[in-house]
C-alpha cells in the first residue's frame, strides 16, 4: 500500500443497525472524510480484505452473530491493520469486563451510547490527525527508503568500480611481471653479449699485438726507423682497443650490478685513494686540500670508483700546471650532500658541456690528455644509481669543479 496524502480520509463504520450507521455518517459528515459502512462484523472483514487504508474504525460492540470484540480480534490478525485505531461504541457503561475485553483486543478507545457528537467528532478528528501524521512519516520513510535504495545502488556501483580497479591492478601486475621477465631476459642476453664481445673482440686484437711484438723483437733489424714507428703505432693502438673494450664492458656491467648500500666514511675513502695514487717519475704532484666530508650511504666499491675517477681526472688535467692544488670538499644542500673535486687544471669549454658525461666522449685530444672517454660516464651512472646527480663547472685553462650529490645520510 502506497500512502497517499491529500486524498479522502477513510473511516470504517460498523454497526448492525442501519439507523446507527446513518447517524454516525451524519455526525462525521466532512468534506475530507469518506465513510464506509458495514452492518456486521463479517461485512467489515470482507471490506477490510480489499481495503486497508482506513484512518479509523468505529465498531459497535453489541452485534448479532459476531460481536465487536470478536470482529476486532480477527481484524488485528491482519498484519497491516494491527495498529489501525478502533473506537468501540457500546450502550452499556457498567461493564468493566467489556472494557477489559476491548483493550485486550487492541482497541484504542471507548465511547458510550448515546454518543456525544462533539466528543465523537473530536476523537475521530484526533485519530485522523494521527493517521495523517503517520502517513506523512510513511512518505518520509519512503523517501528515506528511496535514498537508502539509491545509496545501495551507489554502493553497488562503487563496488563494481572497485572490482574494475582490482581487475586493472591485477592486469597491471601481470603486465609488470611480464615486462620484468622480458627485462631480465634482455639483461641476461646483454650479459652474455658483453662476455662474447670481450672474448671475441679481444682475440684478434691480441693476435695483432702479439704478432707485431714478434716483428719488433725478432725482426727488428729488418725495419728502419719509420717501420719501427709503424710497428709501435700498431702495438699502441691495439693496446688502446683492448682498454676501450675493457672500459666499455666495465661500464655496461655497472648497469646490471646490484647496489649494496652501507655507510661510507668518505674521508677515509678519499684518504685511502690518495695513498694509493701512483705518480710517474717527473710527474707534477698536485697539493691536496681535503675538507671535512660527511658520511654517505651507498655502495662503497662503486662510490670509491666515483672518487677515483674524479680525483685521477683532476690529476690528469692538472699535469701541465707546475704548481697546482686539488680541493676536495662537501656541503649540505636541501636533503642532499654535495661532494666536489676542484682542480686548477686545463678545464674545458662549457659549450661542450652536454658531451662531458657521454660514453667515449672526450673534450681533449689524445696527444694532450690520454683517455678512453668512459670515466665520467661511469661516474654519472654510479651516482644516478644512488639517486644522486653529477654536474660540473669549468673555465678553459683555469680549472674544473666536479660535483656529485647523494641523499643526506644524517637526515
Amino acid at each position, binding site marked *: 500500500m502506497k500512502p497517499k496524502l491529500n486524498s479522502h480520509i477513510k473511516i470504517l463504520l460498523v454497526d448492525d443497525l442501519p439507523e446507527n450507521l446513518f447517524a454516525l455518517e451524519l455526525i462525521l459528515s466532512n468534506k475530507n472524510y469518506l465513510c464506509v459502512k458495514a452492518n456486521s462484523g463479517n461485512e467489515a472483514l470482507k471490506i477490510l480484505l480489499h481495503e486497508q487504508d482506513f484512518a479509523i474504525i468505529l465498531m459497535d460492540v453489541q452485534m448479532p452473530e459476531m460481536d465487536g470484540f470478536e470482529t476486532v480480534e480477527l481484524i488485528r490478525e491482519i498484519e497491516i491493520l494491527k495498529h489501525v485505531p478502533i473506537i468501540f461504541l457500546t450502550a452499556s457503561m457498567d461493564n468493566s469486563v467489556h472494557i477489559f475485553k476491548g483493550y485486550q483486543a487492541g482497541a484504542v478507545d471507548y465511547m458510550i451510547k448515546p454518543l456525544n457528537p462533539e466528543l465523537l467528532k473530536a476523537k475521530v478528528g484526533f485519530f485522523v490527525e494521527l493517521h495523517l501524521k503517520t502517513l506523512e512519516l510513511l512518505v518520509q520513510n519512503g523517501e528515506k527508503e528511496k535514498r537508502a535504495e539509491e545509496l545501495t545502488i551507489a554502493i553497488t556501483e562503487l563496488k563494481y568500480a572497485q572490482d574494475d580497479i582490482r581487475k586493472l591492478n591485477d592486469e597491471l601486475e601481470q603486465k609488470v611481471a611480464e615486462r620484468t621477465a622480458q627485462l631480465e631476459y634482455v639483461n641476461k642476453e646483454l650479459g652474455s653479449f658483453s662476455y662474447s664481445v*670481450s672474448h671475441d673482440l*679481444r682475440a684478434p*686484437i*691480441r*693476435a695483432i699485438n702479439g704478432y*707485431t*711484438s714478434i716483428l719488433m723483437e725478432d725482426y727488428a733489424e729488418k725495419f728502419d726507423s719509420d717501420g719501427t714507428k709503424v710497428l709501435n703505432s700498431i702495438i699502441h693502438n691495439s*693496446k688502446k682497443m*683492448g682498454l676501450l673494450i675493457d672500459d666499455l664492458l666495465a661500464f655496461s656491467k655497472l648497469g646490471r650490478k646490484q647496489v649494496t648500500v652501507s655507510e661510507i666514511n668518505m674521508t677515509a675513502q678519499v684518504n685511502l685513494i690518495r695513498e694509493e695514487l701512483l705518480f710517474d717519475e717527473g710527474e707534477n704532484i698536485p697539493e691536496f686540500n681535503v675538507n671535512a666530508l660527511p658520511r654517505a650511504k651507498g655502495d662503497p666499491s662503486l662510490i670509491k670508483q666515483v672518487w677515483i675517477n674524479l680525483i685521477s681526472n683532476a690529476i690528469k688535467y692538472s699535469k701541465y700546471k707546475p704548481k697546482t692544488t686539488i680541493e676536495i670538499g662537501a656541503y649540505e644542500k636541501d636533503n642532499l650532500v654535495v661532494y666536489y673535486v676542484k682542480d686548477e687544471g686545463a678545464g674545458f669549454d662549457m659549450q661542450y658541456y652536454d658531451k662531458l658525461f657521454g660514453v667515449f666522449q672526450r673534450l681533449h685530444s689524445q696527444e694532450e690528455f690520454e683517455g678512453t672517454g668512459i670515466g665520467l660516464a661511469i661516474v654519472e651512472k654510479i651516482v644516478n644509481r644512488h639517486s644522486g646527480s653529477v654536474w660540473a663547472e669549468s673555465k678553459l685553462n683555469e680549472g674544473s669543479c666536479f660535483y656529485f650529490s647523494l641523499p643526506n645520510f644524517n637526515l
Partner: protein
Amino acid sequence: MNHDDVEILFAEDSMDDAALAIRALTKSGFTNKIHHVKDGVEALDFIYCTGAYVARNGLQYPKLILLDLKMPKVTGMEVLEKIKSDPKLKSIPVVILTSSKEDPDIKKCYALGANSYIVKPVDSDKFFLAIKEIGMYWLILSE
C-alpha cells in the same frame, strides 16, 4: 712422435693465441716440452692415451696443463672437471686461460680445483710475462 716427455699440455683452439703462448713458453726455456692440442677432446685423448695418443705411455703425465676455457666440442672446464675428479690426475696443476676477467666460469673453475688462471691480455708483453711466471711457478712447484 714421442709424447712421453711432454711437460706442459696446452689446450687452445685459437692458433694465434697458441702460437703466441708457445713462443712465450719456448722463449722462457721450455723448449720441446710443450704439446699443443686444439680442443678438449684432444686434451682428454692425450691424458687418457686414447684416439691419436694410443701409443703414449699412460704412466707419464704432464707436469702442467694449460687449458683455454672456450674450446669447441669439450670445453676447458669439462676437461678440468675430469682431471680434478680423477685421483690419478688431480695433483697435476691446471692453469686456466681466459679472454676476460669478466668470465663467469673463472669462479666455477676454482671451485673445480683449478690452480690459477691467466687473463690473456691484449698486451703481448704482459701475456708473455704472465705465462712465463705461471708456467715456471707451477712447474717448479710440481717437481
